[in-house]
């Protein structure tokens, strides 16, 4: 199945993460994930607004990456469920998230993530994810 990878290094080993354009900044011990601004992420060219699916993919990926980092996983966590609430329309600008691992059980982990653009106090989408670990 999946080859082990250095813990917290999910993004570097995910072709889809590269295609989507997810990066991680590590500064002052905090981990900030960024969805790079790209024309291909747009879902509505008239507004314009990012595609809801691109935002969902970003949040799920950074929740998985943060979980792997915090829990020291060497294989990718497998998503069980993801619940997305879209709070505001997202423009074609960089999007950020700082997911929080809420619980690491023996088999299941729970991670929450919010995505924002203008500031963490103006979320555009929130995700609640459960992963099998």
């Amino acid at each position, binding site marked *: 199945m999946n080859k082990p990878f250095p813990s917290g290094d999910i993004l570097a080993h*995910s072709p889809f993460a590269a295609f989507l354009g997810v990066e991680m900044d590590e500064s002052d011990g905090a981990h900030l994930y960024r969805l790079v601004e790209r024309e291909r992420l747009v879902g509505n060219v008239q507004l314009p607004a990012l595609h809801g699916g691109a935002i*969902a993919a970003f949040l799920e990926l950074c929740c998985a990456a943060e979980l792997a980092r915090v829990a020291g996983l060497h294989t990718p966590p497998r998503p069980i469920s993801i619940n997305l609430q879209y709070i505001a329309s997202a423009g074609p600008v960089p999007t950020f998230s700082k997911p929080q691992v809420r619980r690491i059980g023996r088999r299941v982990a729970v991670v929450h993530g919010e995505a924002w653009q203008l500031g963490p106090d103006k979320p555009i989408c929130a995700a609640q994810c459960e992963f099998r670990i």
Partner: protein
Amino acid sequence: MTSRPEMLNRVTPWSGALALEFLTISSDCAVMRLPWRDDLAAFEDAMLLASGAIATLIDQACGMAVMARFDRQVVISTLNLKIDHVRPAATASSVTVEARCYHMTRNIAFVRADVWDTDPGALVAAAQGSFAFRRHPSP
């Protein structure tokens, strides 16, 4: 977005980037396909479609199922979407989604979606969501 399926990937860049395909559309239902591609793999050496790519397929098909209810353009925004990843898709397999808009109020549409790889009876993912819509502003 537009109610004309053939225009989808032109006016919706992210659907075009994933090369989403239209299979059928009826009065309340849209069937779409996400073709396998190496750069959509979740992880190196694992020929599994990334769940984020499947999320895009689901969100798009749900929107199209809402559009199918109208004979004119509407602007649709996702309010909430819950996706259960029932099991991993088969290795290097494309997946198909069937999204059905099962109820609508004046401004809100409710949609369910099923995703499978080879057998429509053996689901890879199941989803449910609510969507807000409004008439397209006149030009």
